[in-house]
């Protein structure tokens, strides 16, 4: 699988995959009018990637300063998909939820995602300023 990058806009995050260290990164803000349109290609890539992924560790770093309610649904779908791969197929996946100390909302929303996950490793990571 090759590395790739979708550059950030004001309303959509930067999404990039580094094939060397198997890190997928989402960074920025997410509040487009139609999140499905934005996330569909990422999800179809993920589907293919997970299918060929063996014991290699896969890391997903999520650092979103703001996301709207439909993006929150998209994030849940993403985490559900990863959780399923860990629980059913024994994949080695870690999610890092990265937030800055002054962003209470990002911290709180990370905790809420964490509460509902059982198999997937989901770390809350406070960023050093």
């Amino acid at each position, binding site marked *: 699988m090759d590395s790739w990058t979708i550059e950030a806009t004001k*309303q959509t995050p930067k999404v990039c995959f580094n094939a060397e260290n198997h890190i997928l990164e989402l960074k920025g803000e997410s509040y487009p009018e139609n999140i499905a349109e934005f996330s569909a290609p990422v999800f179809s890539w993920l589907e293919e990637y997970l299918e060929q992924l063996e014991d290699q560790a896969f890391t997903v770093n999520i650092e979103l300063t703001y996301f709207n309610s439909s993006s929150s649904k998209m994030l849940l779908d993403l985490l559900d998909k990863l959780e399923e791969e860990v629980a059913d197929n024994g994949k080695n996946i870690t999610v890092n939820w990265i937030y800055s100390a002054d*962003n209470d*909302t990002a911290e709180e929303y990370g905790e809420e995602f964490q509460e*509902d996950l059982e198999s997937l490793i989901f770390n809350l990571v406070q960023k050093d300023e």
Partner: protein
Amino acid sequence: MLENLYNFKTELNQRGIFFCFSGPISQELLVEIGDTLKNKMRLEDTSSSTVLNVFAMFVEQVQNIIHYSAEKIPLNEPEKAELSSGIVVVGYENEHYYVLCGNMIECKTVDRLREKLTALQNMSKDELKRYYKEQRKKKVPEEDSRGAGLGFIELARKAVKPIEFDFKSVDAGYSFFSLKTII
């Protein structure tokens, strides 16, 4: 109107309204206005979590207008079928920011919307959190929803006071829906 514009502006200022927009609104406008509002609040030394919360309310409420306003202008461009109209007000009163939005809706949706919003008004923060997570888990959002169906719950969760709303009957087919959230 020319002579009264200054009076209109003064009245807005007196009411603590620092942003006011009425007309067709798009996602592109939302992005630019949202940016300007964030800058303005930061310059006033508003805490960064308050700035983000006001911005979040603004985004959800304006996207509500974009998705659900019954006042739409058809466009020729195929990828964007129509342009929605509404009113957006952002102000500061009693030491809190607020976002007030309004748009036309079809009368037939009034009862269902009133029921939904009244239920949210009466929920505690814990109940709202549970309800939010429950709704988010649903594979298919409610039939009349064009997003994830979470917008109003998100607003109710972030607001420091219960959300306020009003319906004004305009004619046989349409009502005007207003929604106020306090941050």
